[in-house]
């Protein structure tokens, strides 16, 4: 070995030991968070109410805010199944006593509503505060969140109509939650030590290889009415290889997607921005159908500008009591494109 390579080896070893010492800290990376930053983002509320902001809201206030900000999706009484599953319904006074929602066992409720499932009132406060309303999350003040929650609990007959919910009485109301005893962590699917049975599975298959049973019990197959529900399967499979997709449903549907037209683009925009959650092309959902909008505004010179502004700013009163929420996230160009599309009959292609 030459002297040159020996010295390289020494250097390499020195470098190795240096790295082990020097990289205990990641110098210059990250910085302390300020108090204001922590306050802005750390808004979570735990079941023990750590993080719950001070404030209060009455059922009456909640009713008002809910009608203005929530009812367009959830229905005036939180019962709507149009856009999301119902918030309220399926709980009884008996459930409030026992803390177990009976309709979860006997299946008497058509849908599992939020209040049938949730055990912790903190969950509802936390979620409404962080994520609602749908198109303007984090725009509600704490008092409004208390009010909305009081209103929902009143609809489920958990609190009386003159109730004022506050940070002071949340723990008391927790004791009335209809499904407060309905959760268990006794299972093997929590990958930590703090909860559950330490990972022990509840169900186990058998690795039998030969003559494992005497007959095959075929208990379910795709019902005929569902055969076409997912469109043409031939257009959802590769056209080369060991098999082809079965021809089902509407053969034309996939073909149109090949060249995407302006109309199709705007229709997708209407889908992706949530417009079609409340407006059907030919039917009223929460707001008027596009056919109704077209009928009302057809031929009006300023309709395009007026409606585009309305899409962005929101409005109320023209189509009944349910207001349309504002959509400030839409660009002017997209708002105009949407209105043009609606006023041309909302064509699919």
């Amino acid at each position, binding site marked *: 070995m030459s002297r040159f390579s020996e010295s390289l080896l020494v250097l390499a070893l020195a470098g190795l030991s240096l790295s082990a010492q020097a990289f205990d800290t*990641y110098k210059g*990376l*990250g*910085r302390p*968070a300020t108090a204001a930053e*922590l306050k802005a*983002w*750390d808004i*979570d509320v*735990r079941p*023990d109410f750590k*993080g719950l902001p001070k404030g209060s809201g009455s059922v009456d206030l909640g009713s008002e805010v809910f009608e203005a900000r929530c009812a367009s999706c959830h229905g005036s009484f939180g019962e709507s199944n149009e856009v999301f599953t119902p918030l309220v319904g399926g709980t009884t006074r008996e459930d409030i006593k026992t803390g177990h929602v009976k309709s*979860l*066992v006997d299946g008497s409720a058509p849908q599992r509503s939020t209040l049938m499932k949730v*055990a912790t009132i903190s969950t*509802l406060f936390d979620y409404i505060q962080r*994520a609602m309303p*749908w198109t303007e999350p*984090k725009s509600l003040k704490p008092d409004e969140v208390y009010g909305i929650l009081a209103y929902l609990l009143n609809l489920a007959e958990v609190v009386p109509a003159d109730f004022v919910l506050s940070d002071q009485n949340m723990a008391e109301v927790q004791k009335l939650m209809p499904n407060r005893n*309905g*959760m268990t*962590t*006794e299972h093997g*699917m*929590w*990958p*930590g030590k*703090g*909860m559950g049975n330490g990972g022990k599975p509840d*169900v*186990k*298959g058998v690795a039998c*290889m*030969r003559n*494992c049973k005497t007959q*095959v*019990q*075929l*208990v*379910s*197959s*795709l019902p005929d009415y*569902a*055969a076409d*529900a*997912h*469109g043409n*399967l031939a257009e*959802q*499979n*590769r*056209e080369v*290889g*060991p*098999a*082809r*997709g079965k*021809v089902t449903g509407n053969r034309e549907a996939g073909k149109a997607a090949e060249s995407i037209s302006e109309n199709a683009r705007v229709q997708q925009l209407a*889908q992706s921005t949530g417009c079609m*959650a409340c407006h059907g092309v030919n039917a009223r959902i929460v707001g008027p159908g596009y056919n109704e909008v077209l009928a009302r505004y057809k031929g009006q010179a300023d309709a395009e500008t007026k409606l585009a502004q309305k899409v962005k700013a929101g409005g109320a009163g023209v189509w009944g009591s349910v207001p349309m929420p504002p959509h400030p996230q839409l660009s002017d160009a997209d708002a105009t494109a949407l209105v043009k599309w609606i006023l041309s009959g909302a064509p699919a292609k």
Partner: protein
Amino acid sequence: MTEPGQKPGRLRPAPENFLSEAEVKEVARQGASSRRNFLRNSFIAAAGAMAAPALARAAEGDPNILGNPPWTTSLGMPVAANPYGLPSKYERNLVRRESPGLTRVSGSSVAFTPLQGLFGIITPSGLHFERHHQGWHDVDPSKHRLMINGSEPGFLKTAKVYTMDDIMRLPSVSRIHFIECGANTGMEWGNVAVPTVQYSHGMLSCSEFTGVPLRLLLEDCGVDFRKCRYVLAEGADGSSMTRTIPMEMVESGEVFVAYGMNGEMLRPENGYPLRLVVPGVQGVSWVKWLRRIEVGDQPWATKDEAVHYIDLLPDGQHRQYTSVQECKSVITSPSGGQMLLDTGFYNVTGIAWSGRGKVTRVDVSFDGGINWQVARLEGPIQSKALTRFNVNWVWDGKPAILQSRAVDETGYVQPSYGQLRAVRGTKSIYHNNAIQSWKVSETGEVSNVQVL
């Protein structure tokens, strides 16, 4: 050996392709009993119509060989014609799709991965399944921040803020893991509801993720691991989705904050520029657009662990904080909604995975679970990643029921529907890992069925 004259160029399309739409409807109208005869007659008619030209061609050979195609006789496209490459136009059928009627708002919905057409274990990034709770955004990485704080100030030495520049300078790891939504196969708890593997199992993807172990970041903030046994992860989207993660998984070094996926940055729909990777745990915990980590001493019971992602049992109790995706497998080809081309040899292929570690064995049955044989596993077999399996099969034209059953390194064996329902009933939406059955009928049609 096959005589070219009998099967000219092996170009015969799937049986259904011989039929016009009207003929297909006619079959549907006449019902299943007459279906076989109808198809057989159509075959004969079609073969008759083709007989003369086929024989003429066969004398000389395949026209695709005898007459060179345009791509062999002309100049091709220049480099960088597609600066970001795209799949062949012939592959347009393999795209993410929504399941009609599953949800009512596309902003809070699912687009399923087309597993029926994928190979190996890596999901192409553009086909990675999507599940958003309040729509997706293309987040500006220069404005994205990751905050780490504690439920109590004393839980760490310093609450810190990192930019993407900071995070991408830290020591990184690259690991291949599957991600499966807890509700994957959820529509099938009570009965068959969807036609294809895309909709039955397509809330499943597998990628190589690159990022920084969360333990490193928590150590950098001086977290008191003795006091903090839980971690809250929060997203930067409108829903600011939150999930509780056990500290044990962070301490093991498994959990990491990822910015890379399959060699490039994450796609916006998958959390660009930063998401959490929680190997083996359901996708909802892999918080996208990750903006905050809070360390604490108890779980948070957030909306997605107190209203959704809870497993309803027959006695009316919900299992809360169910997170591990238990061992599961599915045959992807042939699979539901497909038509086999012909009798003869097939390479039956599928994927297996376990949230508890490595897959050690996959068994395949062709008779609905009476007899089983061991499938070939393709390497490398990695912990909490998809594993591809293959098995030879000669279809003799008789009805068959194909199943796969995976076993993982803990000895856990994937259960049948009968075994799963006996314990958990049929009302849960989540964590359905039952053995999937595909029925092959004499026509070559493959359909989704359930076997106890």
